[in-house]
């Protein structure tokens, strides 16, 4: 039953009043002021300074304010940056897809197979590993995946292998595994939010109408939780593009990503060029976000 009586053709339910329909702007709008000032003062303006840098030149350790497009030109002419950018993109994409596939059943497990009383605790347990150091967790993974790591030790113990094998660490797969570990909680939390809202009697209805569990999932559950999955995609995929510590630690010589190169540039005081590469990526991100705007609307995710 509708909570509010809806007027035919009315776009907004009466509870969510469009500002344009009342004469006075809602006082709630003042709530945007602090975040606006915060992001304007400490995010947009400082970033704009960096944008300026990307058009300047560096001489030794000094920034020279000569306008130039060289920094951007270098990004497009040096093949190294394009190769690494493509690799960055592919690794992030792979991790994101795997994370979603792994997180979905886990979120389902949380919603459907844990007692409601402890569900919140189970949920908090998902993010609790974050309370230890990032670096230490990545190191811990290295001692799981390494030549003398837990996996190899176990395989040796079970006589599956005779020599430690090197398939788990210092390659792109290791980057994928550790990223998966780091980003999985975000995917789980987001998908959980959309699954929790789902009315699971629909699944019974689907089964009753002859759908196999898989069909019911494909035809009923997934379409209604799609928004959550896509939102999770955005919130994992994009931040991963800027990662540099994990690839450096576990990636080996072949698993470096674009941010590693930017860090190298910054460490060599090449701020203009580093900033230029970063802004090319950031610009791509913004374009992507505008295109995916619909899925940034978490109200879609939370609307019943």
């Amino acid at each position, binding site marked *: *039953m*509708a*909570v*509010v*009586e*809806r*007027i*035919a*053709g*009315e*776009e*907004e339910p*009466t509870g969510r*009043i*469009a500002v*344009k*329909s*009342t004469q006075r702007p809602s006082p709630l709008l003042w709530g945007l002021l602090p975040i606006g000032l915060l992001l304007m003062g400490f995010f947009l303006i400082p970033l704009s300074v960096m944008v300026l840098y990307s058009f300047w030149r560096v001489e030794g350790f000094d920034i020279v304010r000569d306008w130039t497009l060289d920094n951007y030109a270098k990004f497009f002419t040096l093949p190294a940056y394009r190769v690494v950018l493509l690799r960055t993109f592919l690794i992030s994409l792979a991790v994101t897809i795997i994370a979603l596939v792994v997180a979905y059943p886990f979120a389902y497990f949380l919603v459907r197979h844990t007692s409601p009383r402890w569900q919140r605790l189970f949920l908090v347990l998902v993010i609790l590993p974050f309370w230890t150091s990032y670096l230490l967790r990545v190191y811990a993974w290295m001692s799981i995946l390494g030549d003398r790591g837990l996996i190899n030790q176990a395989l040796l113990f079970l006589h599956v292998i005779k020599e430690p094998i090197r398939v788990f660490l210092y390659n792109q797969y290791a980057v994928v595994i550790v990223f998966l570990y780091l980003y999985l909680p975000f995917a789980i939390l987001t998908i959980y939010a959309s699954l929790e809202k789902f009315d699971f009697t629909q699944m019974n209805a689907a089964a009753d109408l002859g759908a196999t569990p898989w069909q019911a999932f494909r035809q009923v559950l997934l379409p209604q939780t799609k928004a959550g999955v896509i939102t999770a995609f955005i919130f994992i995929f994009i931040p991963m593009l800027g990662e540099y510590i994990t690839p450096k630690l576990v990636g080996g010589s072949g698993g470096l990503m674009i941010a590693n190169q930017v860090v190298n540039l910054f460490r060599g005081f090449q701020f203009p060029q580093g900033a230029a590469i970063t802004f090319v990526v950031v610009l791509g991100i913004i374009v992507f976000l505008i295109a995916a705007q619909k899925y940034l609307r978490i109200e879609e995710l939370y609307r019943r």
Partner: protein
Amino acid sequence: MADDRGSDFYAVELVGVSKHFGNVVALDNVSLQIKQGEFYTLLGPSGCGKTTTLNIIGGFIPVTSGTVRINGRVVQDDPPYRRNVNTVFQNYALFPHMTVAQNIGFGPRMKKVPQDEIERRVERMLQLISLPGFGDRKPAQLSGGQQQRVALARALINEPDVLLLDEPLGALDLKIRKQLQGELRNIQRKVGITFVYVTHDQEEAMVLSDRIAVMDRGKVVQEGTPTSIYHHPANRFVANFIGESNFFNGKVMDVAADEVTVEVPGFRQPIRVLAKRPVTRGEMVTVMVRPECMVLIPDPSTAERRDLVNMVEGVIAKAAFLGMYTQIVVELTNGTTALIHQPGGGELESAPQSLLGQSVTLGWRVQDGRLLVD
């Protein structure tokens, strides 16, 4: 506290109130006068504007134009918390994080009534709604009916001038609804507060109300007592919405002093109906007849004697025994159908199915028909 302005004022008065949401007109020039102590119902299908009207009286949404008075005071610019009006919301809107007692005591607490006084009053309200000892529970631990009563108590404890109720029984099942209807009416008599009640259930409106305003598409189409609305619906919409009706469309053939004759295509003889409103010859009109006013005539020759001057022929298409009466659907000669409620007993009750396919004549009295102009 009740405003001591006496009963010179209407409890609630709406003058020319309109409400627009963007381009959508939710209320169109609505005027209402609700008397002190009245049980007044806004009745209509969903989307008719009845809840919008209630929300405007409650102060939850601003009017686009018009005046709202409560006890004679102009209030349309006052926020809800400055109006001595309380609301029982649809689905109750009980605060889930507070106990029953905290919910009921919320109003007095906001008015800074001393704690012991609040406790006393809450206790009294719990008695009134027959839930003594439930004060420490959370709303989620109550049944729907109990929640409804708590919502009522929460509103009544403030002794409002007017109590607004938005489909308060809508979420309950039939049996509890019936029971609570009685309780509601009793409580209203006991406390003597003006109730403004919103519902889409015409039967509920009939049972409870002193007066009913029927709304349609943002307008009040008819206002009156349950009987007057039932017997004298203003138009086809009201007639259809309140109770069941048969409609016959036709052209005015003849206008006499107190009687109009209407020719209905496909009928052997024209229909005679009392002229309660001015019509002119040749005008297209609708004649409404309630199903319980129609009679199956076994022998048409005796019809005149029983004043059944209007007669139409048809074939029985459906018949069902419903307890108090048997409902019969007759396919008429003009291709429409008529609905008849025949009091129980005798042949009809024992074997309604045996009537199927029988040719019958239907009759009704002149005064049973209503002339509607659309």
